[in-house]
């Protein structure tokens, strides 16, 4: 047997082992999920846990069906999803624009430094009531809540990426006689794109927090509202259903951003 076929064979074996491990991991994951659901169902049926508090998978599934059929779950989900997307897009763009202004004018950046630190340290949700008074109890306040929670950290992170651009790249542009705008467009902004993408990931999570809290406070529509409502009427099946829907949607958004990141990485690296 030649060396080449030996290596090919060993490689085949390696790949097979990898495939097998992957399959085992997946099966174990599925097994855990179903065991959990099964135990939950049984425990709830036999009142080992309080069914009023912990509900049960079958009840949640049942409610899911009912709420899909009367269209209300879709409406609430669309509202929350839309608010989250809006707030996370606005926060990322706004944060990046403010960071660009800070980079452009070092004086402004020095002046605003302590204010940004304070704003960043402050728990933004505490501003919720003020937002509602200022912007009215509606979408606007909720989206503002989501923006507020992630915009400061986006500004700080993106600004520091702008600020830490490799000086030598800037020097390349300058030796060609490039002005500040060209330095920003050709070097500072493109080199910060990976950082901006990674703040997108963080902002997905933060926006969900802002939106849900906003909906708690405004209490009109959306999954946050369903949770609060379910809590008030002691319908924990509704609370758990809303939680599940949020988990699924947040995962979808996060995966979407992850795919965007990979796409850009491939084009950039």
């Amino acid at each position: 047997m030649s060396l080449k076929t030996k290596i090919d064979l060993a490689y085949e074996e390696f790949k097979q082992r990898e495939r097998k491990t992957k399959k085992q991991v997946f099966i174990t994951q599925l097994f855990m999920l179903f065991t959990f659901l099964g135990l939950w169902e049984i425990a709830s049926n036999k009142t080992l846990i309080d069914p009023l508090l912990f509900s049960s998978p079958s009840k949640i599934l049942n409610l899911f069906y009912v709420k899909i059929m009367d269209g209300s779950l879709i409406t609430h989900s669309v509202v929350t999803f839309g608010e989250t997307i809006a707030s996370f897009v606005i926060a990322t763009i706004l944060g990046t624009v403010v960071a660009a202004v800070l980079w452009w004018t070092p004086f402004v950046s020095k002046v605003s430094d302590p204010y940004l630190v304070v704003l960043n340290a402050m728990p933004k949700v505490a501003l919720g009531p003020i937002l509602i008074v200022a912007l009215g109890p509606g979408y606007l306040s909720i989206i503002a809540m989501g923006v507020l929670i992630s915009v400061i950290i986006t500004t700080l992170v993106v600004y520091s990426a702008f600020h830490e651009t490799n000086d030598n790249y800037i020097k390349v542009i300058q030796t060609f006689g490039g002005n500040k705008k060209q330095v920003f467009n050709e070097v500072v902004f493109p080199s910060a794109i990976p950082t901006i993408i990674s703040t997108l990931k963080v902002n997905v999570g933060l926006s969900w927090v802002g939106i849900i809290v906003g909906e708690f406070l405004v209490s009109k529509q959306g999954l946050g509202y369903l949770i609060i409502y379910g809590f008030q009427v002691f319908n924990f099946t509704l609370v758990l259903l809303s939680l599940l829907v949020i988990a699924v949607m947040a995962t979808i958004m996060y995966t979407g951003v992850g795919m965007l990141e990979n796409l850009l990485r491939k084009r950039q690296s």
Partner: protein
Amino acid sequence: MAFLTVDQLTHAYFSTDSATMALQDISLEVQEGEFVSFLGPSGCGKTTLLSLIAGLFQPVIGTISIRNEPVKQAYDQIGYMFQQDYLLPWKTIEANILLGLKIQGNLNDMSKAMTFELLDHMNLGDTNKKYPHELSGGMRQRIALVRTLATNPQLLLLDEPFSALDHQTKLKLENLVFTTLKEHQKTALLVTHDIGEAIAMSDRVIVFSANPGRIKSEYTIPEHLAKMEPFDVRNHEDFKDIFQMIWEELNELEDED
């Protein structure tokens, strides 16, 4: 009239708690088409001098002129090569080599065609659509050379452009840069701390001393060596004597410290 005139140049870097004297009272003239090397220990202000000539910042005292024109406005006559290639990693080779033309607003079919021809000349014509990370260090530095030459500068400022390369690549690139610059009749200033490289490439070697950076001495390379390609100079019998002379001079400098 000299091509480049540096007149009583002194520069210091300021920070809140100190002022670092980088260069003191530098005066020199460079003729058109001349190749001059700056040799000296690290920290003697060689990069500072090139940056000042490139007009990246202004000297505290003194003036620099190219054909009697202050360097503030001379960026279109200057090309700069750095210790590393600093090709922009998110741009293709094509976009990288056209960068200078784009910034200076001179991007047109003719300037593009000339730049691609230059790339072909370096045997790198097929790298156009690639990204910098796909190429070796030597290839990248050659592409950086194309990027620098694309704007057709009259004066080349070379800041240790070979120091990050392996020895073999470095020797090859010395020859390539030398012949390319001679072919296009460029004036060049080369910063290096490699004595052999300075002798092999230049018409004239200027030795700097450190703290603060000052011109210590100057050697004119005999014409027959100056004309020769760097690799051949290194193998020439007269090379050793000049090397020895400069070597002793630099040792003296170290002892003074």
